[in-house]
């Protein structure tokens, strides 16, 4: 009697996993988070066992701490969030169009490619000190550091994507009488958007790392210095630090979800192919 029941339970679970409805997707999300927190719990226990000190507080403690910190943590979260989002917007609105132009127009490519090849491989952190010295440690520089890093990322991938455009698509709109601008609007942009959005996801992680570095450099006011400053200021309180890290993860998650939603809307055509006809 036990066996069929286990089988049925398994079938129930796999059905839920395959379920593409909204509820099904939420269930998968929760399951995946549960796995992550489970691993975290195990790591926390192992560290406690081996070292005898609770360097890594368990998830429950971290979440409770987030609640306790409340408005203070939220203020820092908000500071980091707007800095990161602003940097992403600046980098996207400059790096993406510029990358497309360089990828499409041969003379621009000849002129800019050497510059890109020289500047891109330098880790942009190397410029931090210079920027701090010249412009001080205020918000503009912190946003600028993140924006520069993402800018190059997006520039290089937009350039690559623009070179991969299917010439038949271009011929097709040209023969229908498209102007150069219309060629960009109807072919180059839609054809490169999926890979740019992928690149944007990578940029969120990259931007977060640079934001952290920018926020722990210079002034550290735990009040509204951003999550980086908050984490650094909590060096001797591991529980508080874990709460800060968790808040950072939450920021990343929110941004990923937003990018996913944007992709579903602007790349709608890529999601219909899976619809059965």
């Amino acid at each position, binding site marked *: 009697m036990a066996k069929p029941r286990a089988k049925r339970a398994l079938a129930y679970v796999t059905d839920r996993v395959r379920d593409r409805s909204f509820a099904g997707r939420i269930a998968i999300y929760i399951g995946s988070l549960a796995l992550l927190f489970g691993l975290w719990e195990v790591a926390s226990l192992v560290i406690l066992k081996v070292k005898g000190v609770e360097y890594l507080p368990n998830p429950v403690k971290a979440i409770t701490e987030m609640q306790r910190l409340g408005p203070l943590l939220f203020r820092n979260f908000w500071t980091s969030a707007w800095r990161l989002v602003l940097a992403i917007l600046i980098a996207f609105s400059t790096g993406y169009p510029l990358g497309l132009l360089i990828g499409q127009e041969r003379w621009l490519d000849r002129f800019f490619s050497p510059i890109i090849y020289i500047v891109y491989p330098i880790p942009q952190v190397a410029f931090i000190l210079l920027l701090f010295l010249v412009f001080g440690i205020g918000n503009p520089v912190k946003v600028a550091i993140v924006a520069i890093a993402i800018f190059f990322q997006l520039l290089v991938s937009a350039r690559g994507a623009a070179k991969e455009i299917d010439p038949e698509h271009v011929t*097709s*709109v040209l023969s*229908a009488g498209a102007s150069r601008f219309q060629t960009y609007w*109807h072919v180059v942009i839609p054809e490169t958007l999926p890979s740019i959005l992928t690149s944007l996801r990578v940029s969120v992680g990259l931007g977060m790392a640079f934001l952290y570095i920018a926020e722990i450099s210079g002034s550290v006011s735990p009040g509204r210095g951003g999550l980086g400053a908050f984490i650094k200021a909590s060096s001797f309180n591991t529980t508080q630090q874990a709460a800060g890290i968790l808040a950072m993860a939450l920021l990343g998650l929110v941004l990923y979800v937003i990018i996913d939603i944007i992709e579903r809307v602007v790349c709608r055509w890529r999601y219909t192919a899976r619809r059965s006809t």
Partner: protein
Amino acid sequence: MIDVRDVVVEYGKKAAAVRAVDGLSLRVAPGESLALIGPSGCGKSSLLFAMAGLIRPTAGTISVNGESLTRPRREIALILQNAGLLPWKTVWQNANLSLLLGREYPRVTAQAVLDELGLGEVKRRYPSELSEGMKRRVGVARALSTSPSVMLMDEPLASLDTLTKERIQDLFLRLWVRHAFALVLVTHDIEEAAFLGQRVAVLSDRPAQIKEIVENPAMGELNYRDTAAFADTVQRLRAGLER
């Protein structure tokens, strides 16, 4: 009337230049159909793109109704090798690309054209949701949407199965009769050339030159594929290609 005179198309510069079309001349009268047949890579697409105003010939002239051709024009439609549909646009948007790009034409025909091609039901779908044959028909709908007087086709039925291919060839024939455009069809399918060309120009290896023009006056007869005249044209085309 489209008049191609001593057209040369070259790619690249000087020593590295590749000559795709070599001093080729031809004329297509209004409402006439001409098939161009030649081996792979001989320069057929290059010639057709020049006739569509998409590339400027290195030498020679192309004129349409007495005016020299410098850029794509509304009365010349081009159907590409793989239909050239944009995956991010629906069937309706793809078929009405010219309208979308701001070239005006009587809009009432749009729905009629889709219905005529049996695409009325699927106009909100994306190309990835269509069968190969349907995609080609959307390409045809786009070409018809501007009521062109010249229709250029670049291997429009390549890589389709025989039955679908013949069905769409029949469709082409009907459209040609009904809409009375001049048809220039590039193909490397001998039977297709014999079925759709009143005249068939046999091209040489690259660079493309006209080796021979085969007259095919009985084209368009009922069940033409089953007639002796068809078999005879096919025979002559094969001989011309091998020569």
